[in-house]
C-alpha cells in the first residue's frame, strides 16, 4: 500500500521560503494570497498490507526521520 506524508512547519515557526513565495505570487498579480507556507510531501510504497500496521510504521518513520518535531507537524494518509 501507499503512504502519503505531508510535513509542514508548525504555526508560529518563521517560514522565509513561504514568505518569498507569497511575495512573488503578489508581484505576479495574484491578489488575495493571505499567507503561503511551504512544506514537504513524501510518498512511500510499502510492503505492509494492513492499513493500521502501515500507519503505525509510518508514524514511527515520521518521528525518527521524516519530520523534526521541534518545528514540524506531519500528517499521514494511507491508500490501499
Amino acid at each position, binding site marked *: 500500500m501507499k503512504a502519503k506524508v505531508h510535513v509542514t512547519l508548525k504555526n508560529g*515557526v*518563521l517560514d*522565509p*521560503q513561504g514568505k*518569498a513565495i507569497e511575495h512573488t505570487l503578489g508581484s505576479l498579480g495574484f491578489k488575495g494570497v493571505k499567507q503561503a507556507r511551504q512544506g*514537504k510531501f513524501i510518498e512511500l510504497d510499502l510492503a505492509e498490507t494492513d492499513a493500521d500496521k502501515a500507519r503505525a510504521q509510518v508514524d514511527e518513520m515520521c518521528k*525518527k*526521520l*521524516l519530520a*523534526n518535531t*521541534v*518545528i514540524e507537524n506531519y500528517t499521514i494518509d494511507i491508500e490501499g
Partner: protein
Amino acid sequence: MKACVIVFPASNCDRDMKVALERSLGSPVDMVWHRETDLSGYDLVTIPGGFSYGDYLRCGAMAARSPIMAEVVKHAQRGAPVLGICNGFQVLCESGLLPGVLMRNAHLKFICKDVSLKVENANTIFTSGYSSGEVVTYPVAHHDGNYFTDAETLKAIEGNGQVAFRYVNNPNGSINDIAGVLNKAGNVLGMMPHPERLVDPLLGGIDGKPMFDGLVKSLAA
C-alpha cells in the same frame, strides 16, 4: 589525549578540523568514517562542517541517523566531550544531543563572511581560552544557520548558561542571536561559525586558536 574527526559523505571541513586540533594537541588526530561503530579509544569527538548527504530532507538529518552517531550519543552520555561546527552543529541538533534546530537563514541567502561573536560563557571546556564578554571574529559559511527553539527551551538554555557564543550583528535570524549552544551538562558544544578556519596567520587570523588550545588544556587537566 586522543581526538577524532567524524567524516560523512560531503563533509568538507574535516581536514581543517584535523589540522586545527593537531596544532593544539601536538599529536595526530584520526579521521573516522561514518560507517564505523567504535569510538572507545577517543577522549574528544568532533563533527566537522560540510553538506553531509547533500542536505537532503533537512540539514544533518541523514548524518544524525548514520551508524557512528549511535556511538557519538553514547560518548556524550558518558560525559565525554563532543564538538560540532556548522554542519556538525546541525547534526548534533538532529541527533537530539543539543536542543533546538537550525533553519534556513531568515533572508534566504547563503552567508560567507567574517562575523563578530561575543563569548557568552567562557567557563566551559570549549571556551576556556577566552574570557566571558570577549569579542572574537570567526568566519561563517552557511545557508541554514538560523537557530530556533520553542520559548520554554530557550528560557531553559538561557537560564542554564548554555549559550556559548552570540552574534554581535545577527546575520541569519537566530533566536536571541545564538551562534553556539551547549548541552545542559556542558560537554557538547555546537556552533555555526568556524574557529578551525582561523588558526594560522596565513589564513587571515588566529582568533580560533585559543578555542582549540583551551580545549586541549581543559581536557589534559
